[in-house]
C-alpha cells in the first residue's frame, strides 16, 4: 500500500498533513504519535470512512483514494475502531458472521468460519453473549475477530491493546505476529511503545498531522524530534 501526500482537513484543521509512506506487503508497520496527532484520522482516510482532502492511496497498484469503505473491505482491507463499535444487539458469533459472510455465502459456512476465528482469539466461550454485556477487553477482541473474518490481506489495528492487562496484551501480540507470518500485512496504532518495538519492522511517527519520522524502531526511538514530540506526553512514551 502506498500513501502519497495525503491530507485530511476538518474545517481548516489539518488533522493529517501531507503524509507519504509505503507499507510493504507482508510487513508489520507501527503508527505512533501523541494524542490528537492524526493517527486515527489517517486510518479513517485509508479505510474509506473519510475521503482525503488531497493525496492518493494505492493498493495493489489500484487507486483506492475515493472508494467507499465496503469496497475497500472487498478488496482485502479490514480495520478495527479505537472506540469499539460492536453490534450490541446481536450475539458475538453473529457479530463475527457479518464479517465472514463477505467470502462465505452460506449460513453454515460463514458460521463455521466465524467460530474458527473466535477459537483462534480464545473468545469462543462468549459466542452467544451480547457484546454490550461484555468487558472492554473482550469487546476489543470481538472487534479484531470481526475484521479478521473478512479474510483481509491488510489489517489496520487502532489501539487494540489499550485497556488489556499484560497477559491479554501478550496474547494479542502473539496473534498479530502469527497472522503476519501467515502473510497478512498489518498496520498497528499503539500507545504502548513496548508492543510496537517488539513487533514492528518499521515505525511511522505523526505529530500534529505531520509525519516526523519513518524508520526501524531502534532508530525512531533515538530520533530527537520524536523524543521532543513525546516530551509533553511522557506518560505514553513510558513503558506502561
Amino acid at each position, binding site marked *: 500500500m502506498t500513501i502519497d501526500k495525503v491530507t485530511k482537513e476538518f474545517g481548516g484543521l489539518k488533522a493529517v498533513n501531507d503524509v507519504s509512506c509505503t507499507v510493504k506487503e507482508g510487513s508489520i508497520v507501527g503508527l505512533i504519535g501523541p494524542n490528537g496527532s492524526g493517527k486515527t484520522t489517517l486510518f479513517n482516510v485509508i479505510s474509506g470512512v473519510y475521503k482525503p482532502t488531497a493525496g492518493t492511496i494505492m493498493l495493489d497498484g489500484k487507486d483506492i483514494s475515493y472508494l467507499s469503505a*465496503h469496497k475497500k473491505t472487498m478488496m482485502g482491507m479490514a480495520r478495527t475502531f479505537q472506540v469499539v463499535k460492536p453490534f450490541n444487539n446481536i450475539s458475538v458469533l453473529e457479530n463475527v458472521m*457479518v464479517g465472514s*459472510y463477505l467470502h462465505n455465502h452460506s449460513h453454515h459456512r460463514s458460521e463455521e468460519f466465524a467460530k474458527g476465528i473466535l477459537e483462534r482469539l480464545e473468545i469462543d466461550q462468549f459466542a452467544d453473549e451480547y457484546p454490550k454485556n461484555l468487558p472492554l477487553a473482550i469487546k476489543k477482541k470481538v472487534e479484531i475477530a*470481526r475484521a479478521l473474518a*473478512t479474510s483481509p490481506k491488510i489489517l489496520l489495528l487502532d489501539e487494540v491493546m489499550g485497556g488489556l492487562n499484560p497477559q491479554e496484551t501478550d496474547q494479542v501480540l502473539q496473534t498479530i505476529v502469527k497472522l503476519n507470518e501467515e502473510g497478512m500485512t498489518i498496520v498497528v496504532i499503539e500507545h504502548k511503545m513496548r508492543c510496537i518495538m517488539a513487533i514492528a519492522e518499521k515505525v511511522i511517527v505523526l505529530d500534529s498531522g505531520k509525519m516526523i519520522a519513518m524508520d526501524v524502531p531502534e532508530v525512531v526511538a533515538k530520533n530527537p524530534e520524536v523524543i521532543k514530540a513525546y516530551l509533553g506526553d511522557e506518560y505514553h512514551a513510558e513503558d506502561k
Partner: protein
Amino acid sequence: MKLLNNKIIRWAAFFLVLIIAGLVVDNNYYLDILITVVFYACMASAWNIVGGYAGQVSVGHVAFLGLGAYTSTILFLKLNITPLIGIFAGGIMAMVLALLIGFLTIRLRGPFFTLSTIAIAEILLVLAVRFHGLTGGSEGLNIPYRPSVYNFVFKSYFTYYMMFILLMIAIVAVISYINKSRTGFYLRAVREDETAASSLGVDVLRSKLTALLVSAFFTGVGGALYAQYLLFIDPHTVFTVSFSTKVAALSIVGGIGTVIGPIVGSFILTPLEIFLRSQLGGTYQGLYLLIYGVIMVSVILIIPKGIYGALSDAIKRRRKQVKNELSA
C-alpha cells in the same frame, strides 16, 4: 437441519390453527376480527423488514399501502384488469415508489429518514385527492359487489381470510429466509452501526434499499388485497399516517427484528384495540385511544425488546441455567 424442520412444523401448526379457527367461528363479525388481526400481522411484519431489521424507522409506510390499493382498484375499474394481476401490480408500484424514496431519502439517517417518509405519505394523500378523474378524489372509489374469481370479490369472508393467510405465509417465508441469510445479517449490522457495517464489507445503501423494496412490495400487495376486502378506498383511509404508526407500534410491542415479534404484536394489540373501541368508542370518544396508547407506552418502557424479545431472552437464560446445572 432438524431445527429447520422443527421450525417449519411449528409454523405449519400455527397456520393450521388459524385456518381451523376461521372455519370454526363461521360468523362474519368474528371473521372480520380475524381478518383484521392477520392483515395487521402482515403489515407489521412487512414494516419490520425496514424498521426492525434495517433499523430505518419509517412512518410513511402507508404510502405503499395506499399506492397498492389504488393501483389494483384503478386497473380494475378503468381497464377491467383482474385484481388477481392488480394485486401484484400494486406490489410492484409500491416497489417503484420505494426505489424513488430510496434514492431521495435513504442516505438520510435516523430522524431525517423518518420525517421524510411522513412527507411522502402526505404528498400521496394530496395527489389522491387532487387527481379526481383517476382516483375519485376525496369521495374515493367503490368496487362493485359482483362476486367472481375474475373480479376477485367473494361472498364468503372465509375466502378473504384465506387470502390474507396466504399473504402472511409468503411474508413469514421470506422473512425467515432473510433472517438466516447474508442480507439479514447485513441489515442487522446496518441497524446497529453503519460505519462498522461498511468496514466489514456491507454496502449500507444497497442493504437499506433491498429492505425497503421487499417491505414495500408486501405492503403494496396487502393494500390491494385490503381494498378488495373493503370494496371501497378513499385517500383518508389508505393514506392516513396513523396506519404507519400503528404497524410500527405493533412491531415494537411484539419485538422488532424478529420473525415472530410483529405477529405477536398484532395478535395481542389488534383484538385489544377492537375490544376497547367497541366498549368505549361510543360514549367516550377517543378514550380507547388513550388507554391503548398508555398500554403500548408501558410495554415499550418496561420491555424495550418487546413481548417476544423478552420471552425469547428469558427462555435462552433458562436454557443456559439448566445446562449449567446439568454440567455442574
